[in-house]
């Protein structure tokens, strides 16, 4: 299974995302923001970082990178896409996911191991988890507050599209403790915490993040 990881100018976590794909047993394919196509990959990870220096709004300029044209079309047709941190911001700016990420309510950068509950295990990226499984993965953001209007939030909750939720305390003011969401089809998932940093006992607090990357391989194998 070939999983593409897109590098934008200013991406930071593309290396770790590629490594997580490999550790899960997949083949990672390096994609570049200026690429005109997706090289026939079976899924795509949009990594964390500060694409285009976070100028204008986080993800706002990356959303119009050349590679994003084919990516948005493919995602709407069912291609599995995972956006982590800055990648989540790019997915919201692309309107592949509803809502937006704004500056943390306490106005400080947060960097810590974060307890989460996986609330939707039927997406392409979370099928390896048990329903309501609690996991701990690193979280690091300055603009990670998830916001949307009440109608959108109610719809996300009612349709089970909140994928992961913050436990213990809310690190960034995200409405309804939302850490990650999915689209109606379940192929596009975005979250602020970093599962790709929790895949190896040498460098991560847990191995809890690996499930995102094994899930997609299982999903693709059974497709």
């Amino acid at each position, binding site marked *: 299974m070939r999983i593409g990881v897109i590098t934008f100018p200013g991406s930071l976590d593309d290396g770790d995302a590629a490594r997580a794909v490999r550790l899960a047993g997949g083949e990672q394919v390096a994609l570049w923001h200026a690429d005109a196509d997706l090289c026939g990959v079976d899924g795509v990870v949009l990594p964390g970082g500060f694409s285009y220096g976070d100028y*204008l709004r986080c993800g706002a300029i990356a959303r119009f990178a050349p590679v994003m044209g084919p990516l948005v079309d493919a995602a709407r047709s069912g291609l599995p896409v995972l956006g982590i941190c800055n990648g989540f911001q790019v997915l919201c700016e692309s*309107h592949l996911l*509803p*809502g937006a990420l*704004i*500056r943390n309510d306490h106005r400080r950068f947060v960097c810590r191991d974060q307890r989460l509950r996986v609330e939707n295990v039927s997406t392409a990226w979370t099928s390896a988890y048990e329903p309501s499984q609690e996991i701990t993965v690193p979280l690091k953001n300055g603009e990670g*507050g998830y*916001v949307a*209007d009440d109608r959108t939030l109610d719809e996300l909750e009612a349709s089970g599209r909140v994928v992961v939720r913050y436990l213990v305390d809310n690190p960034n003011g995200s409405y309804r403790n939302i850490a990650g969401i999915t689209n109606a089809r379940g192929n596009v998932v975005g979250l602020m915490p970093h599962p790709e940093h929790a895949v190896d006992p040498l460098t991560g607090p847990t191995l809890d993040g690996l499930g995102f990357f094994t899930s997609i391989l299982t999903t693709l194998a059974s497709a």
Partner: protein
Amino acid sequence: MTRVVVDVMPKQEILDPQGQAVLGALGRLGFAGIASVRQGKRFEIELDAEPTTEIIAEIERAAGTLLANPVIEDFAVRVEP
């Protein structure tokens, strides 16, 4: 040269942590009578042509596509006299 200004502001229902930080700093500096602050962005766009209805419509489209995120922000386009 004609200047078109695009003002972008966070929607009322969206939290504005930057505005709150500025409000707090103003209070600490002793500026009195300020009830709230919201912080937005101002874009100044120079035209190399007359601001026809078509060109202004094009800038409105640019504002809604890139300059502002209509999910969390409102924008207003005006031609500077």
